[in-house]
């Protein structure tokens, strides 16, 4: 089936070529980073994790969100999602690969990354995160391959696939839980030391991921004869709505415990994010934008009239993704480090090479996603011939 | 076979490229000399272990020394001959073989091996 990704229209190849250009630029920057060291990023002694790790955190959520279509279809026989599950799995695979790549480029000694497997350390959450992500990638590859090839042969998928699919459901939850555990057990970082971090991660994942999936489904609908169906779209929109509502609720819970208790080591990080500290306020406009986008998204999504109007729905999904990307991909990680353990306010902003490498990794994900979706659509014979 | 001429031509190009190190070296004018290692300058006549053993196993020995010193805090090595040595690349090995270029690099350059010991470990008396 892979050969189906190697033939396409002019538009298809132009898109692939553009992605390859971006990837090439990023690879060149990465070689520079490998030789010079991570000094070419904006990271410093106090802010040791930044844009790369924040993207990883956001994308783990996107990867986990495939479960939001898999669970209803395989566990509850929700037939409407039948055609969507492959799109969800084919979103999860590039998302996990991007996660792994973002971690790889963040390593000081990437050539030693095998040490994580040579010297497994069961008390380190990073070890378990590696296991969880690797396992999830393998699961999704197996599941998507066998379901799609069975569909191509117009046969039901093999019986042994069912338990594997069911395993992917708690596994999806676990990949984002263990990623939250990376942050949530550190006494050094009071901003992340909250029991609600893992639930918040999951809620934002189950909002952002399905929102991206919906936007992709609308796009695929435009360029092919594939139509997820009104019921699938409406249900997925409801899932995004509920998940986003729960996520905003969790954020408000965090704000309450921090601000009502008035404990400096909790308050200061929120203050840094929304108002700035000692003149360091680069993130403030972003955080307010994220909050406004979240409210706008909820207004559009909760109201059934706008949620049912596909133009409004797409806008709502974009607002959800933008809001949550800012929250996880910018705010959450950086704010853990400001102020630093000695109470000092420090500055961080990604540099151009850091952003170039990050764009390239997103391009790699887009490339894999394009290829996989092309295969799926070809198998279903639904690609519109120009 | 479809496109037989193209496939055979492609295969031929591949075989030529893949075996290029072999025929390039065979056809080169000068044959490279075997590396000559500088003998110890401080009068010492025996190494930590026998020369043949060191030639084959010095990398494993150094790895063993590395882990034993850093992770186990044991710094004395007893050789097969029963002699004690301090396990240190810079202080023991380089004590008898001080010139890295004439000792370590002689074989390493010849066999295109680039261990990165010297990115961290310091060569005494030369500063870097």
């Amino acid at each position, binding site marked *: 089936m892979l050969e189906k990704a190697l033939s396409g229209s002019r538009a298809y190849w132009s898109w692939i070529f553009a992605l390859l250009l971006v990837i090439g630029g990023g690879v060149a920057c990465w070689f520079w980073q490998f030789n*010079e*060291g*991570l*000094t070419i990023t904006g*990271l*410093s*002694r*106090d802010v*040791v*994790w930044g844009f790369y790790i924040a993207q990883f955190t956001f994308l783990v959520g996107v990867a986990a969100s495939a479960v939001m279509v898999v669970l209803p279809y395989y*566990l*509850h*026989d929700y037939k409407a999602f039948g055609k969507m599950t492959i799109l969800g799995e084919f979103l999860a695979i590039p998302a996990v690969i991007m996660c792994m790549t973002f971690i790889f480029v963040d*390593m*000081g*000694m*990437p050539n*030693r*990354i095998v*040490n994580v497997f040579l*010297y*497994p*350390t*069961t*008390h*380190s*959450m*990073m*070890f378990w995160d*590696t296991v969880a992500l690797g396992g999830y990638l393998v699961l999704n590859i197996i599941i998507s391959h066998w379901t799609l090839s069975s569909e191509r042969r117009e046969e039901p998928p093999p019986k042994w696939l*069912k338990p594997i699919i*069911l395993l992917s*459901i*708690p596994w999806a939850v*676990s990949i984002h839980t263990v990623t939250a555990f*990376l942050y949530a057990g*550190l*006494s*050094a*970082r009071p901003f992340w030391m909250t029991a609600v971090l893992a639930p918040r991660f999951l809620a934002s994942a189950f909002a952002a991921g399905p929102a991206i999936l919906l936007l992709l489904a609308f796009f695929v609908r435009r360029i092919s004869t594939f139509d997820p169906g009104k019921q699938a779209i409406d249900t997925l929109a409801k899932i995004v709505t509920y998940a986003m509502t729960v996520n905003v609720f969790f954020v408000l819970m965090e704000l309450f415990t921090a601000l009502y208790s008035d404990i*400096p*080591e909790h308050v200061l990080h929120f203050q840094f994010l929304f108002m700035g500290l000692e003149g360091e306020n680069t993130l403030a406009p972003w955080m307010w934008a994220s909050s406004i986008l979240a409210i706008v998204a909820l207004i559009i999504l909760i109201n059934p009239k706008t949620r049912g109007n596909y133009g409004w729905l797409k806008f709502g999904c974009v607002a959800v993704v933008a809001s949550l990307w800012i929250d996880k991909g910018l705010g959450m990680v950086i704010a*853990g480090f400001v102020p630093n*353990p*000695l*109470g*000092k306010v420090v500055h961080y902003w990604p540099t151009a090479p850091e952003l170039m490498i990050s764009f390239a990794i997103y391009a790699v994900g887009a490339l894999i996603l394009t290829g996989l979706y092309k295969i799926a659509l070809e198998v279903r014979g639904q690609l519109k011939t120009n | 076979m479809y496109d037989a001429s193209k496939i055979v031509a492609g295969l031929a190009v591949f075989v030529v490229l893949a075996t290029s190190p072999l025929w390039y070296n065979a056809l080169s004018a000068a044959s490279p000399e075997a590396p000559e290692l500088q003998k110890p300058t401080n009068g010492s006549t025996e190494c930590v272990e026998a020369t043949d053993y060191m030639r084959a196993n010095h990398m494993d020995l150094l790895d063993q020394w590395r882990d034993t010193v*850093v*992770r186990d*805090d044991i*710094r004395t090595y007893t050789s097969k001959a029963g002699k004690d040595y301090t396990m240190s690349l*810079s202080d023991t090995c380089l004590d008898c073989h001080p010139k890295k270029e004439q000792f370590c690099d002689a074989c390493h350059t010849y066999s295109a091996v680039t261990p*990165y010991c010297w*990115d*961290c*470990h*310091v060569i*005494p008396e030369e*500063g*870097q």
Partner: protein
Amino acid sequence: MKSSRRGFLKFAGLSAVGVAGSTAVATRTKASEEHEPPVTEGKRLALVVDLRKFSKDDALLDKITAACHDAHNVPDFADDPKNEVKWIWTEDFETAFHEQEFHYIREDLKGKATLLLCNHCGNPPCTRVCPTQATWKRASDGVVMMDWHRCIGCRYCVVACPYGSRSFNWKDPRKAPNLAKIENTFPTRMRGVVEKCTFCDERLARGQQPACVEACDNGEMVFGDLNDPESEIRQQLADHLTIRRKPGLGTQPEVYYIVEDPRTLQEVAPAAEVFEEEGGHA
């Protein structure tokens, strides 16, 4: 579908219990010998910093930090703070103990230069998070060690340290001006690994005191084994009021700071005063 849903829910429930249980067990179990040090076996090395004996005398503080950084070829990126690497340094007292939220403070402690370094915690969060055991707490003497051959540079330990004791090599340390020529054979580290104070483990192996302690003139820093009731450090802790940084986090930091009033100093007065009285002899 009904029966497999039931079966699945049973399976999920059991797995959830199993995962939660095994995670709890795994975090408590010794994955490696080196993670949880036994309290009574071997030594428990610690440091006492007598703040009464440090005046505003920058020279001594510079001497102490230089002794460490020179002995270990720590790069000095003074003109490039983003890439700063430091094993021991000073902050003023209010910053070093900022969790105390001082508003009013005894006069002598105001702005007092306080030496900060790795606390070699009894319950270190940094060793708990390292995915490769490139950092671990030695069972024999409690030193929180670094293995620069194994470190993958993920910086998780830096994130986990509540004291900011760890530095990452953002670039090749040998590019620092002070390392253009290296005088000793202590290895530098390379770009991409995390480093910190190791209580001079190479000097401990030779029966010596850490370099910072040796650089002191007058018992400003006392180093020793807390498991030895006869040791000088135990005497110091028994005789004086000490505080530690962020003890409430459960890290059991092993660097203690004597914060008594300097007027309690019965023995030799700080070097500056002696210098004045005796006209040049310290």
